[in-house]
């Protein structure tokens, strides 16, 4: 049995565009990467770079033209591989005529759950994604954020060892996005492997251990996030409570060194997302205080 969660080896995927043999497009070209159990791996790249194709091959929805793709040692087309995978699609691809509870029941039954075990699993997942109050509403009436959350619950229904998330926060407001990010971190804490495809680089940076950058079907850079993003020849220092005199001394010391220069100086900034979330929390606390 393989000790890797996902193993993509020299994978190539070619799509024919017509009847002629010469009329084809190479969506993924000799791609190789692997994901270790318990790791959060981010695959990033522009539209049409081959992210979705790679993800579909891992899910067994497509077969590779060349190369091998394995999930926990099983070939990606093997039904046993799919039993290990929970998939959250970019858009909520669910039956709109079903309620949230019925949706989880449907997918749970497909995964072999039934009876009390299924009921308990549905209840704990609805609680996890905070959709207990909307459990009996049809998905047709759900907002985008609610659909993503029920999608995440659906992905987790069979207690998968690998969760594949395709643009999990696309179209979701910052609070919902934050909730999903926290859930990804919870998955990581519980040892679940996460394979994340996203355009939102900041989100990838926040949660991923390792990142692959794919462009025109080829892996351009791949490795641990910290290694990829650090600028080797620069060093950042953040002071707290430093007086102007101390800062002036530091500047003098650096200017005295012939090889060093100050590239940037100023106050560290928060992100718009963090500001938005903190303001929302503050507003909620004020409202509760007013009610009291």
């Amino acid at each position, binding site marked *: 049995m393989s000790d890797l969660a996902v193993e993509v080896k020299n994978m190539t995927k070619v799509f024919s565009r017509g009847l002629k043999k010469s009329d084809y497009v190479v969506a993924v070209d000799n791609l190789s990467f692997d994901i270790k159990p318990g790791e959060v791996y981010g695959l990033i790249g522009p539209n049409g770079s081959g992210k979705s194709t790679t993800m579909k091959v891992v899910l067994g929805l497509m077969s590779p033209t060349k190369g091998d793709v394995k999930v926990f040692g099983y070939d990606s087309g093997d039904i046993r591989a799919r039993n290990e995978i929970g998939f959250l699609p970019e858009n909520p691809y669910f*039956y709109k005529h079903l309620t949230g509870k019925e949706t989880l029941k449907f997918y749970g039954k497909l995964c072999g759950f039934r009876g009390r075990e299924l009921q308990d699993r549905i209840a704990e997942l609805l609680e996890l994604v905070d959709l207990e109050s909307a459990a009996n509403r049809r998905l047709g009436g759900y907002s985008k954020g609610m659909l993503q959350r029920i999608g995440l619950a659906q992905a987790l229904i069979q207690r998968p*060892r690998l969760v594949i998330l395709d643009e999990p926060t696309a179209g979701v407001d910052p609070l919902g996005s934050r909730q999903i990010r926290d859930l990804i971190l919870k998955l990581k804490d519980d040892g679940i492997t996460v394979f994340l495809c996203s355009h939102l680089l900041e989100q990838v940076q926040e949660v991923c251990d390792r990142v692959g950058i794919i462009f025109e079907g080829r892996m351009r850079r791949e490795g641990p996030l910290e290694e990829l993003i650090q600028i080797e020849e620069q060093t950042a220092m953040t002071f707290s409570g430093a007086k102007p005199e101390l800062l002036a001394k530091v500047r003098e010391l650096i200017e005295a060194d012939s090889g060093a220069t100050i590239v940037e100086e100023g106050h560290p900034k928060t992100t718009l997302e963090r500001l938005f979330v903190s303001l929302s929390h503050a507003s909620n606390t004020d409202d509760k205080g007013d009610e009291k």
Partner: protein
Amino acid sequence: MNQTPPSVFEPATKTVSPFSLRRVMVIASSSVTQLVRMKTFYFLLAFAAIIVVLMSLNPPTTPAGVLSTIKRISFGTMDVFAWLFAIVSTALLIPKDIEDRTLYTILSKPVRRIEYLIGKLLGVLWVIAISLLVMYAVCALALWSRETLYIAEELEAMNADARYSAENVGAQIALIEQQGLRPELGIAVLGSFLKAAVVASVTIFLSTFASSSLFSIIISVLVFIIGHAHTMATSFWLYQTDNSLFVQLLLKVVKIFIPNFQLYSFSHGIIQGEAVAYSLVWQMTGLTGVYLVVFLFLSLLVFIDKEF
């Protein structure tokens, strides 16, 4: 000692069976829910309205004639409902799943493609079976009430008239009963169901490679119509040798690839009051099974490597 409850995320260690009838039934029951919530059962209201109208008519004919008319129209409606519903619902279900990409989330679970196809087909057949049973029950009630009324009226009228002997009365009653509610009518309903099952399997095969529901519906209707010309095609094939190559080829295609829907017309005789051999019913059920297996196999050949 207290045990720590398992985390919400704790991985399961479940085994997956290579083929699961349970998964098939989950998909089938989900398709039934989908069709029911698409308000397909509204057709039953239309059928009930047809029966009410038929019951309110009093055509200037014999009681046996009235019963025969009620049977022909109601069973004809049931038959049309069954095959038309089989085509339309089957043609809608799979392309809709592909179009809405619901298929992504279903096939990313431990579900085999054959389980999905069989599940969808069973879902459609389930709804058709329920609908036919309800329609048959309504029709049987209508027939029984009319038959009982006519027999009572005939008995009263003929017994009051000294010209009629006991034999005359018995013959008249037998004539009414022949056109009334008989157990064989259930076989006619089964005939409609079997025909619908074959049409649904043809449509499911077309849906696996069709680019739209409309295409599947049109081609399925064409196959259904051509399937009624099977005997003609066979006799041409056997006895005509001077046809062009195109005609010969066309006849062979009809003979080999298109199901013979004419065989299911045995139910017409039953509706007209004729007897039916039970061996024929078994043969037709067996033949339907063969058609289902063949078309599901062809569907799987296309669907198994289909990329989404």
